[in-house]
């Protein structure tokens, strides 16, 4: 499995409208061409940044994706439409750790959450696999005890990225009060203190963000949102038919 990590800079006042039109005018073509949406998130708390995470089977899918972007009339129409909502975007291609759950597993399991913790570790060059293995063996079971489930563990392998980027995404509670408890448990855990001291040999720095799962059609989203409507239904809401008289 391979993942596309799309960091999207949006015009913040149009955020919800952007989510709607993306669901109706972009998502169906992407999914028909082998790109499966894992999550569409609001970056917390950076009001004009969204993150879309896509899963696909192999590198050849990216060729199809590029062809779609370059030639397909609907993709071209979307690019013109998106100008109203998107001011910039950058993509990284990510390779998952062997223990990182696939979208199929995420859909079967209980991974819905309002808040996700996104960590980007700046790992010393060449130490990415060693660090990811340690995340799987040591940090993942520890975090489970605090109430966090690993949603994904990836390293950047292509696209726009720096050396040694390892990205983890964790469930982090449904209300901010849940996060308070998770954090308190982690700070009291002697295993975490040991982990923090040891992890310094792989990475000097971790950059934290919250991701808010507020998009109705995103497989990773808050449990407070109902199951998403079918794409056609969404299209009707987002782009009502106009009768010319």
């Amino acid at each position: 499995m391979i993942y596309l990590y799309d960091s999207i800079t949006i015009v913040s006042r149009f955020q919800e409208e952007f989510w709607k039109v993306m669901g109706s005018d972009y998502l169906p073509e992407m999914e028909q061409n082998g790109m499966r949406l894992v999550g569409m998130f609001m970056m917390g708390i950076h009001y004009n940044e969204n993150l879309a995470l896509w899963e696909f089977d192999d590198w050849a899918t990216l060729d199809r994706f590029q062809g779609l972007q370059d030639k397909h009339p609907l993709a071209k129409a979307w690019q013109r439409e998106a100008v109203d909502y998107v001011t910039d975007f950058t993509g990284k291609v990510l390779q998952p750790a062997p223990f990182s759950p696939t979208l199929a597993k995420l859909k079967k399991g209980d991974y819905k959450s309002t808040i996700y913790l996104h960590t980007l570790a700046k790992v010393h060059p060449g130490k990415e696999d060693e660090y990811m293995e340690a995340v799987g063996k040591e940090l993942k079971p520890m975090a489970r005890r605090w109430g966090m489930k690993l949603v994904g563990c990836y390293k950047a392998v292509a696209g726009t990225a720096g050396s040694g980027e390892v990205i983890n995404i964790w469930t982090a509670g449904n209300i901010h009060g849940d996060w308070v408890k998770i954090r308190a448990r982690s700070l009291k855990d002697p295993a975490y203190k040991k982990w923090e001291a040891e992890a310094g040999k792989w990475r000097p720095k971790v950059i934290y963000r919250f991701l808010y799962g507020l998009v109705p059609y995103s497989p990773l989203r808050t449990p407070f949102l109902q199951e998403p409507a079918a794409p056609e239904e969404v299209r009707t809401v987002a782009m009502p038919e106009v009768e010319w008289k």
Partner: protein
Amino acid sequence: MLYLYETTYPFPGMMDEYVKVMGTDLIPGLNRHMTVMGVFRIAFRHRESFFLSELPKGVDTLEGLSNFVMHERDGLTWHRVGFRYRDEWFDSLLEGLPFSPTAEEVVRRQKKGAFMGNTLYYRLIYNVLPGKTEEFLKAFQKELLPMQERRGMKLAGCYRWFGACGESGEIISLWSVKDWAHWGKIQAAQLRDAKYRQWMEQVSGLCAEWSYKFLLPVPYSLLH
């Protein structure tokens, strides 16, 4: 105590109007939910401002803030009007360290003359190496804090990451400075001080890097 740390980017040329309008249209509403401790422009930067607010009810305050922008009239209006002035903002949730003054303490100390009449605040962010945070904080409190307060700087806050945007090992400190002339005297005194040189050597072994900005408080800022 928890704090909301917010950096916003007003459009070029909008800074003066932006901070003025916030003072009349936003801050009174925000103060119903949290204590806005500081509103600052960034020195030598034309489109960056910084806010620091105390969350009296911890994360529950955030639910009140959501309510403010979704249901309360002044909050709803600001939510729309604010887009005229700025296009980007970052928020972090921070935890005050045990020796960091709360808003209540700042007000109490203002009666004795601290945090008054400053034209500058110095925000120094340390990136402490993994596993060294406790050692760093002990040294900060025991060695740096008394040394700097003797030179006339007052620690207005010292925080670490709690949630949302942030970095591991990040310790954010905020100090009052009377003005640039005062800063010049502090620099000269530090150069002569053997204890300060010792501190710098110690901190170099505990931190990966540090960075700073100088903040200019707006007239209605509690820290001014």
